[in-house]
């Protein structure tokens, strides 16, 4: 790896991490707006309004006013507030673990991005200042990308478990207990449900999977059941309603993060939304063709224009998925813990196995 590559990677890390953290802050706003929309309300729309009268800000008014009307300054205000809030570490917690948990949560959520392509990879033809083609992936060419994502995703549960355990609070503890059981159970259908598409595409490399879909059809068409199972498991993996049991507010107050305040709480928050992003990326890449737009794009197209179109297509799909996930949260009630387990073990895993066997058989027959 050349220095240039290293620098490029470094730059990409910075950009991806920076953007993703910023995006998450705004995702929270989007979520609040979606909630408002689902509930026939307006939602946040006035942080910053009072600033407009201040001498220093008056000149910015025409610029700021529309932003304020959309509530775009609310995430910033929330961030500022989290920063200046007192950071309480209760006396009864297990201090090292208590401090470690949020770090773990957010790190694991972030580094999963390393292998997720957010645009075309390979000979993209998008040349950056003569340094060669830009790869829209932090670590391109890892042929077991999906395994990596799964491995890291499983580690993320430690953040939750440690938080619940170290808080020394019964609600947190119950939350952690639920979480460990839930995440471990749903790893299985999650993993099984993608085996089908992997068999079909014959690769563990996320890019290869996109390429296959580009050449043939989207994964959702050849693996509808796999898609459904994966989607449901993804809801569970990301702790979103109807599966948000580890923190179910109505039962466990705040679940595993009950005892966390200020920035540490914010880190869990960020981590959770990062998971949603990762999950949406995975769904898009595995089942919705990645950057593929049928009849329009194909792998051979190169150059900045096509690269950007592809990046945009991918991000659009991811965005829509995220909105879907949020929408569900404001629509459905929650499962009960044991029902969730039943669903995983008694229905989803058998279905996923069935799907796997059927796919394997058909693949074998077709290929002769």
């Amino acid at each position: 790896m050349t220095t240039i590559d290293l620098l490029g990677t470094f730059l990409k890390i910075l950009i991806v991490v920076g953007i993703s953290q910023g995006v998450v802050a705004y995702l929270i706003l989007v979520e609040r707006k979606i909630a408002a929309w689902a509930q026939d309300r307006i939602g946040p729309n006035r942080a910053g309004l009072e600033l407009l009268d201040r001498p220093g800000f008056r000149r910015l008014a025409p610029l700021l006013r529309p932003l304020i009307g959309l509530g775009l300054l609310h995430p910033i205000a929330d961030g500022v507030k989290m920063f200046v809030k007192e950071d309480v570490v209760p006396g009864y917690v297990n201090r090292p673990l208590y401090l470690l948990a949020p770090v773990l949560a957010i790190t694991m959520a972030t580094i999963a991005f390393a292998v997720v392509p957010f645009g075309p990879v390979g000979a993209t033809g998008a040349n950056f200042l003569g340094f060669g083609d830009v790869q829209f992936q932090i670590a391109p060419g890892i042929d077991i990308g999906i395994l990596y994502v799964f491995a890291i995703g499983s580690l993320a549960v430690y953040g939750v478990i440690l938080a619940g355990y170290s808080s020394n609070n019964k609600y947190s503890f119950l939350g952690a207990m639920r979480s460990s059981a839930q995440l471990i159970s749903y790893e299985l259908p999650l993993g099984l449900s993608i085996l089908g598409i992997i068999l079909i595409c014959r690769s563990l490399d996320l890019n290869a999977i996109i390429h296959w879909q580009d050449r043939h059809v989207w994964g959702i068409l050849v693996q509808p059941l796999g898609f459904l199972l994966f989607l449901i498991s993804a809801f569970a993996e990301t702790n979103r309603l109807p599966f948000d049991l580890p923190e179910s507010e109505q039962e466990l107050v705040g679940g595993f993060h009950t005892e966390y305040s200020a920035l540490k709480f914010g880190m869990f928050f960020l981590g959770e939304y990062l998971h949603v992003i990762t999950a949406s990326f995975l769904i898009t890449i595995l089942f919705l063709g990645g950057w593929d737009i049928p009849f329009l794009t194909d792998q051979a197209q190169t150059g900045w224009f096509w690269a950007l179109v592809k990046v945009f297509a991918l991000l659009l799909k991811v965005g829509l998925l995220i909105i879907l996930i949020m929408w569900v949260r404001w629509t459905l009630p929650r499962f009960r813990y044991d029902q969730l387990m039943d669903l995983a073990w008694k229905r989803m895993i058998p279905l996923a196995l069935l799907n796997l066997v059927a796919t394997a058989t058909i693949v074998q027959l077709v290929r002769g």
Partner: protein
Amino acid sequence: MSTPATHPPRNGPSVIRPEWTVTIDPVLQKELERHVLVTDWNKLIGLVDTIYNWGRRSSLWPLGFGLACCAIEMICTASSRFDIARFGAEVFRGSPRQADVMIVSGTVTKTMMPMIARLYDQMPEPKYVISMGACATGGGPFKEGYNVVSGIDKYLPVDVYIPGCPPTPQALLHGLMALQKKIDGETITDLPWYRRDVEREIPVPVLGPDLIDLRTLEITAERTALGLIEAREATLEKPPRIPAPQPAAAEPAEDAAPAAPPSSKLDKIRARVQGTNPAAQGDGETSAASAPPKSAPRAARKPKVAPVMPSLRWLGDEGLAALADRINAELGPGTATIVQAALLIPADKLLEVARFLRDSNVIRYDYLASLQSVHYEDCIEVTYHLDSTSRPGSLIELRVRVAEPEGQGKLPSVVSIWPGADFQEREVYDMMGVRFLGHPNLTRILMWEGFAYHPLRKDYLEPYYEGPTKVLESRVEDGQHFRGEELNPHGTNIKIPQSYQGWNSLDPDADPKGVHLIPPSAAVQVAEIDSESFVLSMGPQHPSTHGVFRMNLRVDGETVVGLKPVMGYMHRNHEKIGERNTFLMNFPFTDRLDYLTSMANNWGYALAVEQLMGDDAKVPERAEYIRVIMAELTRIASHMWSIGFLLNDLGAFFTPALYAIEERELILDLFEWASGSRMMCNYFRFGGVAFDLPDGWLDRCQAIVYDRLERRIDELDRYLSGNEILLERCRGVGVLTAEQAIALSTSGPVLRGSGVKYDIRRAAPYGIYDRFDFDVITGTRGDIYDRYLVRLQEMRQSVKILKHAVHDIPEGPILPGKKSYQIKVPAGEAYSRTEAPKGELGFYVISDGTTGTAYRYHVRSPSFINLTALETMCLGHTVADVVGILGSLDIVLGEVDR
């Protein structure tokens, strides 16, 4: 820049770093400022402040905790009509660690105060407190109550006070903006949380013999030792006591002539205003005994006597006589004596009689409607109202008398016969000190263990007590008034007996309400793994306990193996206060029982007093129709709320609830238009209603009833009833069989959900319900889903009733006579039964005929008694189910704790 008044002048020397001050040529400075970022210390601070303050003011996350009626308005503020989210403040956090502002929304009780102080301590700085409503600010209407803290600012530093009872959502928004203004004025240089010399931690007060603030411990102990309370009370006029009613042979009217004070308080005050009666001045120099001459002319006129019957619909005189004969024949003569249309039973025969009535009588009295006690001159009487679900409307009343002195009354517990007596007996024990032998868990239910008194005894005087009626002379006189605090030697609303010694053993960590825990119930089978159960205290501050309710759970994994409801965190002394109010004054207090259904409460109370007043309060036609319209609108509003929040408890994040609130708002608009208030309507009067309907009201009501409600109910039905997850969560969960439901004295949708066709509107019709055609909806399985369905269908029936009522309502008067503020209520005893949205709402009122206040006033509250069934329903289910089951019971804490 921010605009704090506390800032030093901009160009003067900085107070923080004087050495940084330099003088620059003003022209140069202007130039520099335009092109280069130049600043001085003050400006820098100003900039930091701007950002620092702006961040905090735009992101005020409230602690999700509500205390009482005001909390309902707080929730409405989050609904689509007001939308607190616009300010970025919709993120109600359940955990204090993540909240910025505590909205103290409602009555702060002594039982709750330690929790609130603890929550406050757990919030990270910077933290703010908004005191919402009259109660949080100064005790409000309940200020004199023995369990009420007269203002949260006695303990916590308050930033913004919002007046109102309750403040409207707009007022809360305004309060929020006021807080934002306050934050704008802060500067980072002198904020208390960065200063070491300011102690922000609040010592958690202790529930001892009364609520004790540890900061004032010494002085309290000293004053108690001096016996100041006892000394003051010795000078006060005590509440009079009347003798218990006697068998009919003795002339009842004569007997009822009370040893009452000479004239009603109102008369006294009028006299004082006219300056004619100096003798009535001074706190209680006129004791009952010292003023007979004045009372002579009044006492000679016998007080009017109310018609003698336990309730409007009952077994009837002949039936009762026959029943008494049967009991005497069966269980030995002298077992049952008829006293004022009720059976007087000796305490030692109570169980036999009860068993006979339930099992062998022709009419099976299987339903204990209500149980209460009265403190008479010579005894404490416990009365039981019984009804039969197979022959509804054949109500009878039993009386049992025990010794009067404190702590000596004992009688057998009837829990083994009517399990629904469980909480009610505990309440009698708590309030009157009567012991029930054989009760499985006879502990205080509303107050805490260790509280020094039994508050409903007539000889218990509240700390702010001034005289037998609530028209506190000192506070109505023009020009002069003083506060209750000034009267009580302790200066706060506490009263500790002189004999109290345990000052050194007071412990802020003690939990006198949570001590009785719950052995694992043998009824629950848990999986055969070697696991340990642990105890989880849910509430009183918890997102889904619907107020300050608490459940102590014993869980094994997630399975509930033991459960004890703990209540009293909102005990606002409704009954004690009601016994000092004049009859009319008590209406607004009934509003605040179940604050979601104030109209229904009004009706129940009006009905009880109307029963006593007889023909003096004959309700005119138009008023009867108005009453039905209001009550049914209330039912719809309440059921809407209940369904919305049931879904919320099941995890559907507020969306259904907020849609339900939209409909409720429409109904509240109607209420506001007619009565002047959204929630606390205070609209009924004895014999009618307070005002006629304004012009156009009926049209609007018609429009809503005909065009809107039905559609919305259908919509709820369509979206919710068939939802897979809802079905999964509700079917077969929290099952209550019909037998259990009857035995546990549940009522309303809970009873009917279990398949018992028992609706007071049909079982013991009141008002003009017998003219309307509607069905009594019942479920079949008695699970959460059935209770949900019953509520949904009941709304449809209500719409049906409303359609008729709105169509048929005649013109005419709305009160039998002129509007009157001087209500004369004849002596007697009445129990009214109404079908409130939550279930059977009963008011038990005894009038002595002279004082103008109720001698005894008891509320049979459906929410409270329905909770008796909670444990039965929850055992063996999971924590998540408990939340749903509680939601399906639909309790309102104002009514549970009263």
